[in-house]
């Protein structure tokens, strides 16, 4: 009989200070030396981490009522528009929103120095943010205008709600055209001048639980330096892609929708970032604990950069025009070496996701669990998996 553990049993060990917790990086040599079965006997939890640009992110705020009361219909925070199509003083600030005054790509490539993600970072950094709100006025909400300076402490509820984070694998972006292009994957020099990738590889949460055997709705995670939860599967969750013989998805696949209290988070782990010629995004730190339920779960968690591959995609034409196919696959070990070969050419690589910070997140989460501060949660419901039949549909453009 192979090893079998439950999350309940692991939690008891955590509370007794007896749980064995290692990072996904530390697990690799251990699994190689002991074999999956024995390693699964020894290890209770494996921690993962990632710190990369995650555009589909944002925060809900309840800004508090004014006297007289007001139903916000337009809200700007440091000049960045927040969505108000919800109740009176509730707003949603999207990470990629830019001020209406930003010239965007009019002076190509635009700089996009400030946006929603930077407002969130400023709030986390304790800075005062300039609030401007207007309204049409109603009998119950007569006030029409307010201006003020607010801090995170002044806001009632502030929680991050990110519709799509933690992509399970991602494209390696290259440029086959002969001039530089400016993308959400960074600056891509012409003629295969560089190859940019964006995953923590062997530390990346969903690559280490490729069939969502442990992560599910309700899973407690490290989010932005505080604790968060998996709220749902993320948008564009695409679990039915091809997997390698070792089990890892070969293309972008699953995603997570995450929620968490912004007031517990730190600016170090939630950063506003600017992609030249593309726009604003948010760099988000996420760490997911993997309870080692059996040897199979352990074997997946022990996959190495050498075992994990990503597809190489041309962003000059293939990606923007939605042309299927890719220019081959490459392992994360090769990507991290600093140079890969594409069409017979040596191409330097760069990462957009921070591996040193991913490691720090996995270490931090490990520390929390070892200290007994962070217990694991049973998923309330599994995420749609490889047998769900889910496919991301393109938009059909129809006339009436």
């Amino acid at each position, binding site marked *: 009989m192979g090893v079998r553990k439950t999350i309940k049993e692991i939690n008891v060990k955590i509370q007794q200070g007896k749980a064995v917790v290692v990072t996904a990086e530390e697990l690799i040599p251990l699994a190689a030396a002991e074999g999956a079965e024995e390693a699964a006997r020894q290890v209770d939890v494996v921690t993962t981490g990632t*710190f*990369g*640009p995650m555009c589909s992110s944002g925060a809900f705020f309840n800004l508090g009522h004014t006297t007289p009361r007001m139903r916000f219909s337009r809200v700007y925070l440091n000049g960045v528009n927040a969505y108000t199509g919800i109740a009176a003083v509730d707003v949603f600030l999207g990470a990629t929103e830019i001020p209406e005054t930003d010239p965007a790509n009019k002076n190509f*490539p635009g*700089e996009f*120095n400030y946006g929603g993600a930077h407002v969130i970072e400023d709030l986390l950094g304790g800075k005062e943010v300039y609030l401007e709100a207007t309204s049409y006025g109603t009998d119950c909400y007569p006030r029409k205008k307010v201006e003020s300076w607010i801090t995170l402490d002044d806001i009632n509820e502030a929680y991050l709600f990110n519709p799509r984070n933690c992509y399970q694998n991602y494209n390696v972006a290259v440029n086959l055209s002969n001039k530089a292009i400016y993308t959400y994957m*960074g*600056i891509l*020099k012409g003629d295969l*001048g*560089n190859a*940019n990738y964006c995953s923590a590889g062997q530390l990346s949460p969903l690559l280490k639980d490729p069939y969502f055997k442990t992560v599910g709705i309700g899973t407690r995670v490290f989010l932005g330096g505080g604790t968060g939860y998996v709220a749902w599967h993320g948008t564009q969750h695409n679990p039915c892609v091809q997997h390698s013989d070792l089990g890892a998805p070969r293309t972008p696949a699953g995603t997570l929708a995450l929620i968490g209290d912004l007031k517990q988070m730190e600016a170090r782990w939630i*950063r506003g*970032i*600017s*992609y*030249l010629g593309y726009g604003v*995004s948010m*760099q988000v730190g996420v760490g997911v604990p993997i309870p080692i339920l059996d040897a199979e779960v352990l074997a997946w968690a022990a996959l190495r950069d050498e075992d994990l591959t990503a597809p190489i995609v041309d962003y000059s034409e293939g990606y923007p025009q939605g042309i299927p196919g890719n220019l081959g696959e490459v392992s994360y070990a090769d990507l*991290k*070496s*600093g140079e890969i070969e594409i069409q017979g050419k040596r191409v*330097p*690589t*760069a*990462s*957009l*996701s*921070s*591996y*040193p*910070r991913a490691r720090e997140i996995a270490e931090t989460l490990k520390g929390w669990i070892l200290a007994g501060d962070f217990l694991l949660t049973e998923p309330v419901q599994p995420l749609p998996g490889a047998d769900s039949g889910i496919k991301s549909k393109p938009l059909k453009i129809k006339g009436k």
Partner: protein
Amino acid sequence: MMQKKIVLFFPSTVVEQPFIYHLIKDYRWMVNLLKAAINPRKEGRMVLEVTCTEEDYQRGVEYLQSSGVSITHLEQEIVWVEERCTQCGACAVICPTKALAVERPSMRITFDDSKCIVCEHCLKACPARAVEARF
């Protein structure tokens, strides 16, 4: 005698001409080459410390300008703000001199000021705006 630090920018059309030879021989510049990034048939940059008379300096500058080389005085330096750096690594493929480079296997970014030619490519390539130009 005067001493100045300058940056020369060579467009690709003139990059292979022997400017330094002429500056030394015809304009009596004493040149200390601090940094250079010159590629055949591509644009190039060179950071020099020049010692010569004010008059020779002016003549040399005119010679360079008439040949299509642009000159800026090195009053600017590039500063890597480590606390703002998220250690992503996006700058490393943009930096032409490996002043910003990835250390392996830790994958940490390091900045070696002595290799920087103040080309400023990294300023906007860094998503976290962790590199700044200071005067």
